[in-house]
């Protein structure tokens, strides 16, 4: 009887720790995502982005079985690839994002639409860093990643957000422009309205940007 009791106590105790750990993880992730969302979209501060990227990397190091910390660390590095001042710094962050994405893919263990979307985003920002020399190779990668994301989950709204933003920022001479982008952005908006992230810490970015771009197309 006593043995059984001790066993039961230990069981409760063990699950209690696991539960506490899980809550701590969700809490830390939530805080990181909150910090990410509070970044000034107009003028993102590289320093706070580096701090956020580091935060997610710390969580990733402590939780080697979770792909989301790696994913968010990669996302923050892609944003840094956009705001960094020089081409070589941009490339450093974007290379790092690539490494983190590879890790995330390995942890996730199976093809994941969100990771494909983020790879597409990485290619887009990489292209934007040096468009004259990169539009061919990166443009193709961008399309390729979006295609594979679509094959996995055609309802992921970020696919259409990225497609729309690519058209939005492509000059009219190259077949882009605000008008051309509008139908794709509208489709993105529809998908965003129907979208429910798997949990509070799963990817849920791009809606605000889609709406801003849509407001510019009128």
């Amino acid at each position: 009887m006593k043995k059984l009791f001790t066993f039961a106590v230990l069981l409760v105790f063990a699950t209690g720790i696991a539960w506490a750990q899980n809550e701590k993880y969700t809490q830390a992730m939530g805080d990181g995502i909150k910090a990410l969302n509070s970044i000034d979209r107009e003028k993102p501060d590289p320093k706070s982005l580096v701090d956020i990227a580091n935060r997610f990397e710390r969580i990733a190091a402590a939780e080697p079985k979770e792909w989301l910390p790696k994913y968010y660390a990669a996302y923050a590095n892609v944003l840094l690839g956009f705001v960094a001042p020089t081409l070589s710094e941009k490339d450093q962050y974007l290379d790092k994002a690539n490494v983190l994405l590879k890790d995330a893919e390995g942890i996730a263990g199976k093809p994941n639409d969100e990771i494909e979307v983020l790879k597409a985003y990485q290619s887009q920002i990489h292209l934007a860093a040096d468009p004259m020399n990169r539009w061919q190779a990166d443009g193709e990668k961008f399309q390729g990643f979006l295609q594979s994301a679509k094959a996995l989950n055609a309802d992921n709204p970020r696919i259409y957000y990225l497609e729309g933003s690519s058209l939005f920022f492509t000059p009219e001479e190259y077949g882009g422009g605000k008008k051309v982008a509008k139908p794709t952005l509208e489709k993105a908006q529809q998908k965003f309205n129907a979208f429910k992230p798997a949990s509070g810490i799963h990817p849920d970015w791009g809606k605000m940007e889609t709406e801003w771009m849509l407001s510019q197309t009128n």
Partner: protein
Amino acid sequence: MKLFYCLLLFVSPAVFAQKTIQGKVTDHKGNALPGANVFLKGTYDGGTTDANGAFAFQTSESDTATIVASYVGFEAFEKKISLKESMPAMSIKLDELANELNTVVITAGAFEASDEKRMAMLKPLDIVTTAGAAADITGAMQFLPGAQRVGEQEGLFVRGGSGQETKIVIDGMIVQNPFFSSLPDVQSRGRFNPFMFKGTSFSTGGYSAQYGQALSSVLLLNTTDKISNNGLGISLNLANAGLNYDYANKNQSVSAVVYYGNLRPLFKLVKQNVEWLHAPEFKGSSLTYRWKPTKNGILKVYGMYSDSHLSMNSNDPFSDSGKTRLVLKNNNAFTTSTYTDSWADGRWTINSGLSYSRNKDNMTYDGVNFDRFDERTQARIVLTRLLTGNNTILFGAEAHAINIGNGVDGKMYRLKDRYTAAFVESEIYITRALAGRIGVRSEYSSVISRANVAPRLSFAYKTGRYSQVSLAAGQFYQNPDYRYLYLNKSLKYERADHLILNYQIIKNQRTFRVETFYKNYAQLVREFTGQPYDADPYRFPWGTTTNGGDGYARGFDFFWRDQKSIKNLDYWVTYSFVDSKRLFQQFAQSATPTFISNHNISLITKKWFEKAKTNLSATYAFTSGRPYYNPNNEEFLKDRTPAVHNVSIQASKLQSIKGNLVIFYATVDNILNTRNVFTYRYTPDGQTRFAVGPQSYRSFFVGMQIMLSKKAKVEKDDF
């Protein structure tokens, strides 16, 4: 029960005092690293360093923990620490990882155009956007340091070398006929489309043991691994019309090209200095297939076929009328397949290839048939092993079967060569700042039944974050011109020894590079006819031959490129100086050969107009006078032609028409209409002199490329 509460209390974090860990992260020189991530392994506790490299964070861990510091481009730092109530400030020094900025690259003699390497001095796009290059790869290479321009012949003339001393290599395979068939005093274009290649490396000497049979230089072209446009493209210009179609899925892609060209419309518009009887007419096709069977493996199969027909009255001082009628029909086929793969985490890489080329010229010159035929089958394999610390060692071998035939009025002279080579080469990083490449190549050629062993050596030392010096030396062998071998198969290899010293600095989108060289030529073929010098470039060498010739070439060249100072303006300047003398061919004494120009200068500018979506490029090229043979001058090859000047401009505009991308381009070559002279030839009596110049003086060209790809790809359910 008590125990349970005890345990619960024990794990509750609230009971532990928070400890503060603080310190500073720097590189080895003590420079602060802001933005570094410092944390305790396995916990969420950590922080980011500030602008001074300082960090501070709290933790509730007890006893011991592992502190980790990581920073982009640096090796992660790990250390076990014991956690106490009050901890002294830590000083963490990080080691920089090897990267393109802090690791030396072996560069002496090489000039690269690449998208992938950040240290490359050119981008592949630069080749097509350079005015005066006519979107021709070798045309663009002529403006690089170390190259001499020779207007009336095709080929790359590098640092005192003749056009035959440069080999063109695609994915490791020698291209037997890189240019359209040679015509008297007309420079032929290269056969390959510059868009086929992702990278180009132009070596001006001291090149790797992986390549041989070139006394001066190799031009290495690497084909693209993937296509960038899915769908149909149309190209239309004053000389030809073409269609290309690309299709790709996840692991495979196919590209097909067909074209028909006729220069008659262009010649109607641009005055020709050549009397054409049948303007060049050509048609061709190519097919490329690429397959990725494994994660890193890629198979590429490329095949092309083209034929051409032309006829002209060429200037011929050796005929009574001064003109000779020439008819040329050419058939050319080239196929190559290469397979590359790597395994064991990239520690082993294989590059292999198989190629066949066949070329046939049916030529009538002055009513007499001169047929030329050649074919080359080649196989090549290279294994590379990556060792620790970025050191590599590679082993390779190649085998070629070459058959050559020259027909004179129905009679065929044949030559057969079975050529094999093996090589080994190692790149060694002694430190990140000092690296060496040591290689040796051995060859055997059956036609002369001789073997050779050629050592190659280069070193590079990093003198600063953005600058380095390199040194290269080596021996290079090449078979004598096959025309000598018809009559004398006991000739030896011709040899060149190179010594090159290079300094370069690449910083902030500005590049400066200077290189100086000395080249020694030995065992060059001399011909003894017992007659006066015969300047006819198309004569058949019938005299007795020996390997008694020699010579040298020395000089320097420099390159400056600036993409930064003026927004959207990119310019580069090259200057090449060469001084060279040789005793070879029919020379009775050592003299500067006719293909040498002492000074070559080029200035290339490119400006991008954002609003107009137009790229404007202008090129100025100067080539100093070259020696020519004057039978009336007692001193051999003492006369010099006037200098050649050329100013050309090119504009290309991007536009979207109904959703399709269209590129318009227009070029004007020799805009000042300079009456350039490349060389002079004399009639046999020495009384009259003919000037040999370009096909046309001022000329223009317009065309367009339409890509229907984007349109073809949009699917209905996308919206």
